[in-house]
């Protein structure tokens, strides 16, 4: 077990290093820079600013300096938001994106899993068709359309909910719904197809033959086995949704991390690009890791330590 954990940790660090290096190279290859403006600055002033941020030094030097401060957990200052640090931006933005994401994922799972189960059990019934029709909509309507639609109906027309901003529970409802549509549809489909597969298995017949009540057969034998793909999907889903969505955060004026991820690229805010990418990658890897650990509890066939210890 310890060996497995260590191996995973080393692999994660190497992957992270590769990501940092690639991001660093790519962002410097793209034309422009954090201080390029429509009205070009006098060269002396530009030089002075570049020197302040050590951007006058050779790239390899900037790279090693960056890795050095990264080891101390310092992601540097933002170039655009001059009085803020990247650490501060992540500290402010991540909890907001994460809270919104948690609600969205809760909605996706609470509706998606039961919908998938019911569809599979009542295959080709009207419930199945309805659920699958809804998931098709969930897949194909982009979140900005859904967001706009929700805002128009519930804020503008009906006046039930505040149109935007963050802070009160009712302000979380529309963005969470907009965010949850796609994963909800995905979870429902995943759950349905996985259930259908499991229902065909011999052990299902055995369970029924033993005379177990149908409720127990479904719950203990079918759902438990069928849920594995959903759990697998949960890792990247949590990482993706917790780190925020630019579109939904922009439309609902939510101060999350997602907007910085996109805006920093437009602004060539190098430190924010790197910092948020590192944070996002590390978070994604951690989630995948947790998912792998979770298999042990869900699927009795999986053992982490590998063959030898079996």
């Amino acid at each position, binding site marked *: 077990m310890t060996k497995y954990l260590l191996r995973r940790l080393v692999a994660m660090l190497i992957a992270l290093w590769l990501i940092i290096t690639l991001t660093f190279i790519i962002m410097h290859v*793209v*034309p*422009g*820079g954090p*201080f*390029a*403006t*429509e*009205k*070009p*600055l*006098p060269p*002396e*002033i530009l030089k*002075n*600013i570049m020197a*302040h941020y050590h951007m006058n030094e050779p790239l390899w030097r900037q790279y090693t300096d960056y890795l050095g401060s990264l080891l101390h957990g310092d992601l540097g200052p933002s170039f*655009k*938001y*001059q*009085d*803020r640090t990247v650490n501060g931006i992540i500290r*402010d933005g991540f909890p907001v994106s994460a809270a919104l994401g*948690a*609600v969205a994922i*809760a*909605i996706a*799972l*609470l509706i998606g899993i039961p919908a998938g189960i019911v569809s599979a059990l009542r295959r080709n019934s009207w419930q199945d068709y309805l659920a699958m029709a809804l998931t098709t909509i969930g897949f194909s309507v982009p979140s900005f359309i859904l967001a*706009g639609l929700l*805002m128009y109906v519930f*804020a*503008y027309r009906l*006046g039930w909910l*505040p*149109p*935007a*901003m*963050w*802070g*009160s*529970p*009712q302000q*979380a*409802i529309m963005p*969470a719904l907009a965010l949850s549509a796609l994963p909800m549809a995905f979870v429902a489909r995943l759950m349905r197809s996985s259930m259908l597969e499991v229902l065909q298995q011999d052990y299902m017949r055995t369970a029924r033959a033993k005379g177990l009540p149908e409720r127990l057969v479904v719950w203990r034998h079918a759902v*438990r086995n069928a849920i594995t793909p959903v759990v697998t999907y949960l890792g990247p889903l949590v990482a993706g949704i917790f780190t925020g969505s630019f579109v939904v955060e*922009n*439309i*609902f*004026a*939510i*101060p999350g991390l997602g*907007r910085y991820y996109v805006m920093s690229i*437009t602004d*060539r805010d190098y430190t924010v690009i790197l910092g948020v990418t590192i944070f996002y990658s590390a978070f994604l890897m951690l989630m995948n890791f947790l998912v792998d650990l979770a298999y042990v*509890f*869900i699927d009795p066939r999986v053992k982490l330590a590998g063959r030898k210890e079996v």
Partner: protein
Amino acid sequence: MFFKSKKFFLLAGLLAVLAMMVAGCGGQGGTQGASNQIIRFNVGAEPQTLDPAKATGIPDATIINAMFEGLTRYGADNKPGPGIAESWTISPDGKTYTFKLRDAKWSNGDPLTARDFVDGWLRALNPNTQSEYAYQLWYIKGAEEYNKGTGSAKDVAVRAVDDHTLQVVLKAPAPQFLGLTSFETLMPIDSKVVKEHPDWAASPANYIGDGPYKMVSWDHNQVIKCVKNPNYWDAANVKLAKLDFYLVDNNTTGYNMFKTGQIDFQYNVPVQEIPGLKNNPDFKIMPQAATYFYRFNVTKKPFNDPRVRRALALAIDRQAIVRDVARGGQLPAYALIPPGFKDADGKDFRQNGGNYFQEDVAGAKKLLAGAGYPDGRGFPDVSIMYNTNDQHKAIAEAIQAMWKKNLNINVQLHNEEWQTYLNDMQKLNYDIARAGWVPDYLDPMTFADMFVTNGGNNETGWSNKGYDTLITKAKTTDAGNPKARMADMHNAEKLLMDRMPIMPIYFYTQPVLIKPNLKGVIIPPFNVEAEFKWAYVQ
């Protein structure tokens, strides 16, 4: 069985989250406090910094202007009026300004003296401050040298004669200097606060200003809340108790917030909403001293021929573009410099200058034939470059169609992401490029000196000795003589419009949504979105 309990735990957790959400639904709505003297204004962006020495953005300037005051402050007449300086004298040679300061205080109660202006200006010029706009102070003798690192602070000609007298000596007469003293870069600074709290500009508790309002809180990407500053010298005339700056960058979201009463005043109105707002009492179209134009890369064929440039400029229908595409009440532009600048006789510079050309398809065809492309035959493959944006795209498509119809030439459209676009424009890596220009200060020079040879903002490759001479004259020998100076700029503009390295399209406007019961809000044609000192709710 372990799984089962785990699953229950998970389910219970999810349900708890949902329950919290539902429970919150019955809670309080968006009601406001007791006092009705509050304005909630959407500035449209999270400020990049509120440090007056470092700020460059218009939202930043708007917020700073509410909490700081320079020597002067622009009033409803678009002229710099007394601010912290109650009066001033300008020497006959136009170089020495002596400002008489009133008894004023910082928002923390500290006395405000001439020394604080010296500190603020030297701080902006200090190379270690990294002020992008420090060049706004270069008019002052010794300032440029200090800022560039070749001179020293003590040689900068700004001096506190006593607590209430500030004396400034300029390198050369610069009529725009007085107006610049209201600009954020030229704000005073409470050095004690800056020294004690290096992060003062980001912390509401330490954000000490000398303006009508002071900051209470700053919720990033949400709202900056301000209250009236009781220590402001003119607090008796400040009627507003609270002023909230909303930092919502999506203008459709801002529009919905306005419509549902979350905000009272929205600066950028989404273009698609404008036609439906025409008769709405909340909707106003304000002038903006800015120009929308296309640059021609004159170093490239066919744009090295002025006849081609002129032909293209004559062959579009600006009225149709403004009416059907831009739709914000913009004015068709037949010159570079927008309305809003005072000429030597006090009238509008644009009105005095008039239009420099007329649209004329037949004439355009003749010019194009003269340049060797009769009926568009043989016209090279060229493209219009614009930064990715729906409005710019729509305008480029309209112009593309007009050129096709009127001149029978084909141009391609090609959009670029903002930074790539800036980069390509600066490197003259384009054929025709969309551009917009907003003034730095309220004087035609802010437009006129763009197109001098190798000017940093020229970006067309155009060079004309006569033009350069006129601009130099206006800045030096004629600087002290308003009439001659303005005449130089009129002549320069005429020359520019004759040679057409750029093609003007329209003069911007600023469509805003503002509740009719908000009074005394000034929406100036440049620099800040709105001035709230005299604002109140009726």
